[in-house]
């Protein structure tokens, strides 16, 4: 495993026993006092919204609801309305393409960089930590900076392409055919540091002897990578991909900052559609429907994550 914190897992938790004089239930009560606030908070801020979303998806919400407080149940009306809307299918497809494309790009670039940084060279540590910077900047800010860079007429990317003799008039964000690709590329840029750091940590754990043995056997670099690095790294790879999936599938701020879901809904995803339905069109029932679909997709991957987590922790 990659961190000292993880190895600590083996240490069996020992109960605080000294106050033996006190009755047992009082001791338990005091102990629960430590945990209860967090449990309460998580029930209110995660448990309740999950339940509430399901209920809301069967309610008729209008802007009026906020004054009258009345949101009558309307069965599957919201669901059928959302599913019948062609935009839902589009958003679902965009979500899948956006997530898969982002993950693939982030992972490959992150792994390449992680492998590169396992070399020993001067300033390695400084360069490695500076690469984190894009990941730390608020996503909405990154989105806005890229929006400027990708501007069709005045953006620096097109001027650069012009200067080296390529097509310098690409409508990166304004053409429905290009926009999703551009958004994916920007998200890859955002995700590279995270992938790199975790994969780099995983690479540190690959036993040196394996590489020495491979070198003695005269294995090529590619063969060593395929037969030693990748298999040893597999648990870390699973975690990186699942966590990457979790954070990518719900991205909202980046897309809003870059394209606002446009042009012509070309970058509308389940996340932005939930937002549009609820907070722009003020139809919270429809928003809840899309949100529930998003949760369902996340839940499938949560199972993967917990599986991966379990096989590793034990």
């Amino acid at each position, binding site marked *: 495993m990659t961190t000292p*914190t993880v190895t*600590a897992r083996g*240490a069996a*938790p020992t*109960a*605080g026993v000294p106050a033996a004089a006190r009755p047992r239930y009082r001791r*338990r009560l005091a*102990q629960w006092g430590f*945990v209860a*606030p*967090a*449990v309460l*908070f998580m029930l209110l*801020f*995660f448990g309740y*919204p*999950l339940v*509430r*979303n399901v209920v*809301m998806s069967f309610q008729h919400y209008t802007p009026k609801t906020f004054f009258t407080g009345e949101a009558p149940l309307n069965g599957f009306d919201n669901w059928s309305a959302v599913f019948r809307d062609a935009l839902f299918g589009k958003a679902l497809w965009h979500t899948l393409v956006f997530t898969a494309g982002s993950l693939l790009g982030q992972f490959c670039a992150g792994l390449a960089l992680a492998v*590169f940084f396992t*070399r020993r060279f*001067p*300033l*390695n540590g400084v*360069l490695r930590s*500076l*690469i*984190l*910077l*894009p990941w*730390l*900047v*608020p996503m*909405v*800010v990154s989105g*806005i*900076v*890229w929006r*400027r860079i990708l501007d069709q007429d*005045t953006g*620096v990317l097109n*001027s650069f392409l012009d200067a080296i003799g390529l097509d310098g008039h690409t409508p990166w964000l304004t053409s429905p055919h290009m926009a999703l690709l551009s958004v994916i590329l920007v998200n890859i840029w955002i995700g590279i*540091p995270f992938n790199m750091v*975790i994969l780099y940590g995983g690479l540190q754990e690959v036993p040196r002897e394996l590489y020495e043995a491979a070198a003695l056997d005269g294995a090529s670099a590619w063969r060593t990578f395929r037969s030693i690095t990748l298999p040893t790294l597999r648990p*870390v790879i699973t975690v990186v991909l699942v966590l990457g999936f979790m954070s990518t*599938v719900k991205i*909202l701020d980046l897309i809003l900052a870059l394209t606002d879901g446009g042009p012509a809904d070309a970058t509308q995803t389940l*996340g932005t559609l*939930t937002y549009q339905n*609820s907070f722009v069109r003020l139809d*919270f029932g429809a928003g809840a429907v899309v*949100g529930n679909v998003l*949760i369902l997709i*996340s839940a499938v*991957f*949560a199972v993967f*994550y*917990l599986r991966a987590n379990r096989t590793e*922790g034990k």
Partner: protein
Amino acid sequence: MAAENVKPRTRRRRWGSTVAGALVLAVMLFPLYWMLDTALQPEAGLLEVDPVPHRLDLSGFTKALDDQGGHLLTSLLVSLGAVVICLAIAAPAAYGLARFRLRGTRTIVFGTLITQMVPGIVIANALYTSYVDLGLVNSYFGLMLADASLGIPFSIVLMRSFMQSIPGEVIEAAEMDGAGRLRTFLRVVLPMSRNSLITSGLFAFLFSWSDFMFALTLNTTDDVKPVTLGIYQYIGAHVGDWGSVMAASVLSAVPAAILLVLAQKYIAAGITGGSVK
């Protein structure tokens, strides 16, 4: 093997890697450079920007500070509040889950992992209606609470695994000396967990500082507007004034840059420790 003993050829190759690494870094950081560069040439407006600012023009920054200074303060206040809430709730919980054999510990830890996977927009969707009922819309406290939810599960997982590594004897010794459970926690456990507290607090701050979604959805007026929301609305109104927009962006990215320089070891620990778990 120390670098001095290396043969000249190998050493040259090593510096070659440094050059390659610097090139990669330059490409990765280019957008951030461009943000700074544009910010320093406010009058360039919609025209193309010089690759290097010829003379420093700080008027973009003064304008951005005028327009966004208040929102920066809001961000700072909300983020610090979120950090306090997050640590106050997560640290005792992490200790309880690491130390006491409570029934349901496994379920709670499991639940903590699950919560990290709930899409924020889904939470906002349900939270908004309750916030309206509770009068928490457009309030600092409401936003702090929502932002704290971004850091709490992460902090519990991170601090719990750290606190599990504290030797049981140390805690038992403290309790033998007559310190109560709470005192042991405050005087012995927390100081020993300093690093994991800093890492958790740092990430709670970063999560909250970067938050856009709760800021966007849980506020309907301009009363509580963090800088992420401020900039987003800024481009709507000032799309011709990229100098000021970029200056505001630079200002909003400054805390991240400072934290990276001051606390890189905690950040690296947080990214790996908090997520690989």
